[in-house]
């Protein structure tokens, strides 16, 4: 075997058929495998949520046995986090980062394919628990010891869950490393770090957090393994509280791993459909990096009620995260203000993100205040809070990116009419489902209860939440119809259907195996295609008016300085 320098990729001979997918080293195909698998799990675990909401619609119902209910909320939570939203986040990065930085390939594609299989088989292991005699894991997604030890959870489902989580987490850790490696080593000519599109910057923040925090998940799963072979270790409080610390050392940063790439998607979508450059680029990059750093220092705010954590420290650091979060808001909003807004479905999802994620963020500040957390921790208030961040925020951001990049990956546009129906149903469904949950929690409803008595005063809010969940279910059916229909009959997209500015739009849809068939321009800013367009306009004006080039440039520079306020 001859060695080939990394900078000169060999031209792959694409295999045909199923093998062409399952043995591919094309980062786009690996990404589509990741995203497609994650989308299937998103539907599966979403259906579990709908089943649980059916049971909670009225007091005293028993559609699911207490045991099965516990399996459902455990698999809904851990499945959405480990197997759906995190893979959405990393999958978008695997697809888009090489394209946005003008690279023909991703670093370590074979390793990346291996990681996809780690994720896939880890996922099958976790879900496979349903086939064992005790059923799937049933201790909640954070699986506190001693409950998750073999003494209290003897079933094989829990063992499979631990092994599956470990494998999927390991795969995601290495995927994160490969994306960061790609960003650092494979950028095209002229693309300095400060000329990268903001989505790519958001992936830098994401992958830094992945590398720093996912090893803690592997450590936590190792601790669980010990607790299952030697349940005696949980006789030590040190072991039990250390598990919580180690788990949340992963468990908080992963929240931002499931958030950053979608903010990045929204920043790109906002620029494209405003027809202008991202406003406040430098501060946004600073905010992303500060946010990643801060995310590693706030895990204890999940543990205020343990009585075994310095509450003031974690409270102060958590509240300070409003600074980078506020900067990201500034960047998105000030890009929209003054733009020329074209309301395609992608932009609608990006706009709805703003108020909805704010609800999640503001209630997050409340939960970061220990005196409020003592009341609201482990209640439906928390459930409502993180669904506003993860669903009202991240999933809306994901769909903004989904509608935006679907034509790039498939060559066909999604149907706008179905897309807007999907969007409005999701907005209504999200708010009808999750607003009443704040009240349920405040009225005294803990998380993870399979039912509640009719006398508890929780009937109205729960019924409204369940109706909202039904609307969300319908919206996902509309989405599924749209995907299937558009894949076969969607309008042909062409290279750049939105008139966007970043390099992934400088190639055909879908791109060829090595991404770019023509040489790329020297990159001069985070919006290289806009630079080309403006230069062409400038040249045209020059040719028409016959003015000296220098005067025009001076004029352009002056007009750019003038509106600074």
């Amino acid at each position, binding site marked *: 075997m001859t060695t080939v320098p990394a900078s000169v990729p060999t031209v792959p001979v694409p295999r045909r058929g199923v093998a062409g997918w399952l043995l591919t080293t094309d980062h786009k195909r690996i990404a589509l495998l990741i995203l497609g698998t994650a989308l299937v799990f998103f539907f599966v675990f979403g259906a579990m949520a709908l089943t649980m909401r059916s049971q909670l619609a009225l007091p005293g119902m028993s559609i699911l046995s*207490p*045991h099965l209910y516990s399996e459902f909320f455990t698999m809904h939570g851990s499945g959405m986090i480990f197997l759906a939203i995190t893979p959405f986040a990393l999958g978008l990065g695997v697809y888009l980062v090489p394209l946005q930085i003008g690279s023909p390939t991703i670093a370590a594609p074979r390793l990346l394919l291996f990681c996809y299989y780690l994720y896939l088989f880890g996922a099958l292991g976790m879900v496979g628990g349903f086939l064992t005699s005790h059923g799937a894991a*049933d*201790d*909640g997604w954070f699986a*506190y010891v*001693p*409950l998750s030890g073999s003494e*209290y959870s003897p079933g094989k489902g829990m063992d499979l869950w631990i092994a599956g989580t470990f494998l999927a987490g390991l795969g995601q850790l290495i995927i994160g490393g490969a994306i960061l490696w790609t960003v650092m080593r494979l950028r095209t000519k002229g693309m300095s770090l400060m000329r990268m599109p903001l989505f790519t910057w958001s992936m830098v923040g994401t992958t830094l957090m992945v590398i720093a925090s996912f090893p803690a998940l592997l450590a936590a799963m190792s601790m669980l393994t010990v607790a299952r072979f030697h349940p005696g270790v*949980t006789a030590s*409080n040190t072991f039990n*509280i250390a598990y919580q610390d180690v788990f949340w050392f992963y468990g908080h940063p992963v929240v931002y791993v499931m958030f950053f790439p979608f903010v990045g998607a929204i920043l790109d979508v906002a620029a494209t459909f*405003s*027809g*202008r*450059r*991202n*406003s*406040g680029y*430098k501060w946004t990059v600073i905010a992303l990096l500060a946010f990643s750093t801060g995310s590693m220092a706030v895990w204890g705010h999940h543990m205020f*009620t*343990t*009585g*075994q954590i310095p509450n003031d420290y974690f409270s*102060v650091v958590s*509240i300070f995260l*409003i*600074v980078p979060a*506020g*900067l990201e808001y500034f960047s998105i*909003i*000030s890009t929209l*203000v*003054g*733009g*020329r*807004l074209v*309301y395609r479905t992608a932009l609608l999802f990006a*706009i709805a993100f*703003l108020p909805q994620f*704010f*609800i999640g963020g*503001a*209630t997050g*500040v409340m939960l*970061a*205040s*220990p*005196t*409020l957390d*003592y*009341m609201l*921790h*482990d*209640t439906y208030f928390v459930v409502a809070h993180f669904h506003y961040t993860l669903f009202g925020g991240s999933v809306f951001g994901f769909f903004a990116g989904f509608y935006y990049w679907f034509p790039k990956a498939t060559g066909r546009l999604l149907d706008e009419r179905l897309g807007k129906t999907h969007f409005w149903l999701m907005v209504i469904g999200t708010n009808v489902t999750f607003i009443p949950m704040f009240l349920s929690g405040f009225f*005294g409803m*803990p998380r993870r*209860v399979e039912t509640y008595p009719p006398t508890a005063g929780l009937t109205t809010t729960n019924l409204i939440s369940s109706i909202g969940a039904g609307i969300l279910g319908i919206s996902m059916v509309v989405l599924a119809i749209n995907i299937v229909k558009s894949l076969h009959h969607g309008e042909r997209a062409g290279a750049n259907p939105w008139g966007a500015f970043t390099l992934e739009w400088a190639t055909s849809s879908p791109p060829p195996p090595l991404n770019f068939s023509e040489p790329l321009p020297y990159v001069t800013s985070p919006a290289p295609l806009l630079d080309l367009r403006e230069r062409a306009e400038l040249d045209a004006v020059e040719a028409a008016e016959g003015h000296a080039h220098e005067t025009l440039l001076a004029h352009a520079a002056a007009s*750019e300085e003038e509106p*600074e306020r």
Partner: protein
Amino acid sequence: MNFRHDFNEVFGVEAPIAIAVMVIICAIVAFTVIRYRAGRGHEPSKVAKHPVAEPLYVVALVIIALGLSIFVAHVNGQERRGLGKPQLSVRVVGFQWCWSFHYEHTPVTVTGTCLTKSQDPTLMLPVGEDVRIDLTSNDVVHEFWVPYFRFKMEAFPHHVNSFDVRATHPGDWVGRCAVYCGIFHYRMDFRVKAVSASAFDSWLRSQRASVHSAA
């Protein structure tokens, strides 16, 4: 220490701020969506930097974060200073799936099965007195939550968490386990009943008597 008062104090500051910012964001978004729609036929702005507004905005955010965190830490600190030397201590033990309340330095222990509402154990407290709660667990992690008190604390095996509670007036409130602890977590409820000091003393005396007669 009064968790209910502290909750209201912090909530009373943070909720109005959150609502005000929410209104501002919605107003800006609504204005932008209408004013800058493509249908108006304007050209998009070419300004991408705001060299004065951006640093000012960062400073404003830092000031808000600083103010909020100092305020929150201050109220939280008040709570901890409240730890006094109460006369009465109750050892609260969570187990799968109910609670027991042992009145320390007495033979009195109240417990139940939590199978039905009538079998939920009751934590009896005297009104107007600080009561020390020593919270622990016999098996897995549980969480002692009384929504009326606006307070909860996790109960760990092999570890005791102590805090004081005070009922300011007579009442009868529901309490429950808040952290998932196994399949009957959802019915692990108890009651908290606050009665006058004299009524509490006579209740404790009658409980002692029944313990002695049983022995």
